[in-house]
C-alpha cells in the first residue's frame, strides 16, 4: 500500500472507532507524543480559538473519568472524507486534511420522547492530522479538529 493509502485507511479506521465510542482503541492508534485539539476561528471576537487542547495522557484522563460525569449519550456519527494526504520529503510522516460532518443521533440530551431517534447535524469542520508512517502502519502524531461552528449548544464530553 502507498503512504497515502495507509494514511487514508488510518483516518477512516479512527472515524469508525470514534463512532463506536472505542476511545481506548482510538487512542492506541496515537503516538505517546500525540496532541489533540479542537479549534475554531471566531469572527465575533477576531480570534483563533482553542476549545480543547490535550496530550495523549490528558485524553486518557478524559475518557477514564467519563463514567463520573453526567453526559448527553446521543451517539455521534462522523462522516469523514479525506481531501488530501501530503507525505513529508523523507516519507516518514504525512499531513492529511479531511472534511468532517458530525451528526448527533438524539437519545437523552433533549426531550427523548420527542427527539430520540432523530439525527441532527451537530458540527462541521476539518480534521488536520499528522501521522507517522512506518512499516506500512500509520500512527497519529496530532489531530486538530478545526470547527466552523461557534454555536455549539450543549457541546460534548466526548473526543470528536
Amino acid at each position: 500500500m502507498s503512504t497515502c493509502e495507509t494514511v487514508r485507511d488510518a483516518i477512516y479506521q479512527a472515524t469508525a472507532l470514534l463512532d463506536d465510542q472505542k476511545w481506548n482503541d482510538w487512542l492506541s492508534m496515537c503516538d505517546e507524543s500525540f496532541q489533540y485539539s479542537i479549534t475554531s476561528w471566531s469572527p465575533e471576537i477576531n480570534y483563533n480559538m482553542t476549545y480543547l487542547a490535550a496530550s495523549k495522557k490528558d485524553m486518557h484522563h478524559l475518557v477514564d473519568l467519563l463514567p463520573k460525569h453526567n453526559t448527553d449519550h446521543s451517539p455521534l456519527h462522523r462522516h469523514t472524507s479525506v481531501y488530501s494526504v501530503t507525505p513529508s520529503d523523507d516519507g516518514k510522516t504525512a499531513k492529511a486534511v479531511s472534511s468532517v460532518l458530525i451528526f448527533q443521533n438524539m437519545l437523552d440530551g433533549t426531550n427523548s420522547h420527542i427527539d430520540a431517534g432523530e439525527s441532527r447535524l451537530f458540527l462541521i469542520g476539518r480534521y488536520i492530522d499528522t501521522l507517522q508512517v512506518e512499516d506500512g502502519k500509520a500512527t497519529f502524531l496530532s489531530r486538530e479538529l478545526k470547527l466552523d461552528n461557534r454555536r455549539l449548544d450543549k457541546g460534548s464530553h466526548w473526543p470528536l
Partner: protein
Amino acid sequence: MAARNHDQWMATPPLQKGEWIDSRVYTDYQIFEEENEKIFKNAWVPVCHESELSKPYDFRTTSIAREPIIVCRGPDNQVRAFLNVCPHRGMMIERRPSGSFFEGQPSGNPKRMTCMFHGWQFDMKGSCVYVSREKEGYQDRLCKDDVGLRRLRCEVKFGGFVWVNLNDKAPDLESWAGKPFECLRKSLEAEPLEVFHYHKAIVDTNYKLWHDTNCEFYHDFMHYHNRVTGFNDAYFARKNEAFDNGHIVVGTFEVNYDKYEGFESRASLSFPHLPPNQWYMIDLFPGINFNLRGSALRCDVVTPLGPNKTMIEFRGLGLKSDSKEDRMTRINHHNSIWGPFGRNLHEDLIGVQGQGNTMMPGTEPRRVLHGRQENQTIHDENGMRHYYDEWGKWLNRLPSSPDKPYAAASAVTAAE
C-alpha cells in the same frame, strides 16, 4: 412521604412565602414579552468586550430584546452604540457580526457606516453624513441633521466590557452594578483584559433557569469536578450575598484543582490582586454572570428568544499582556470545565434543558422550590429568592402566583 396525588402535588408547600415560585414564570408567553419590554429594555447588558473592537473603525453587532445594536470605535477611540437600524426604510445597517469600517463597502465610502439599500452613510458618531440625491428628493423639507442614528447609552466598564442600555433614562452603570463588582474591581481593572473564547448555545429552556443555575451552588452535586475539587469546610462557608437591583455575589474560597485527575493548580496565573485559586461569582439581574476562577474570567450573557428558548453567549478572558504560553495555559484552565467540550458546562446545559422539557408553554403550573436556608452560605437558595423578589417588582407579578400583582408581597428577602 409516598408519591402524591394531584391535589397533594399542587398543594402549597410547607415553606414560607418567597421560598417557592410558580413554574408559569418560565412558561408563559405574555410574561416573556413583558420581560423584554419591562426588564431587558431597561437593564444594562454587557454586549461585548472592548478587545473585540480594538482598532478605530472596528465594530460589533448584537441585539437586546429584538432591537438590533451596533457598537463601534470612533477615530477618537470612543466606543459608541447605536440601533443598527437605518432611519430611511429600516434596513439593518450592518449585517456582519464584526469587522471594520476602515475600508469602503460596495455601497459606500471608507470610514462610514453605509446602509447598502439606498446608500445613506453615517459617521462613527452616528451622524448622517450622506443622503443619496438628497436635494432632489427632499428639497428643503428634510436634511441629514434630521436622520441621525438612534444613539444608545453605552459605557465601557468593569474590566473593559461594553455595556448598553436601551433606556436613555436608566440609572448610570456604576449605581446599577458598582457594589457587586467591588469584590473584583481591582482584579478586573488592574490592566486591560482580552477575550480569547466565544461560543454560543441555544437551549430550549427559559433564560431565568440558566441564571438560576449560575446563582445556586447546591447543584455542585451534579458536577464531579466541583465535588472533588471543592467540597470542604471552606467551601460550605462561602457566602451568598444579595445586592440592590437583584444582583448577588458568591464569595470565594481556595479550590483544589489538582484533586481532579489530570488538572492542575491555577496559582501561577492568578488575576492581579487575587490570592491563588480563588473563585468569585457575580450574578447580575436579569441574566448576566461573571465568574472568575483564579486564572480565567468567564462571562455569560443571556438573550431570551421565547419563554422556552434562550441564547447564551459565553466569553473567556485573560490579561491582554499574557505571553503566548501563559495565554495557552489560561485557555486550558478555562476549557477544562467551562469550554464547550469541558466537564461542567455540558452538565449545566443538560440540567437546564431537562427543566425546559418539564416546563414548556402549556405544561401545568407547579411549584419550584427555592427554600433552602443555610445562613446565606453556598447551598442556601437566598440568591434565587433575592432575584425573584426583584423580578416580581419589575413585572408587578407575584413569582409564586404570577397572575397576582407583586404589591401584595412584603419584602420577603429584604433582610438577605
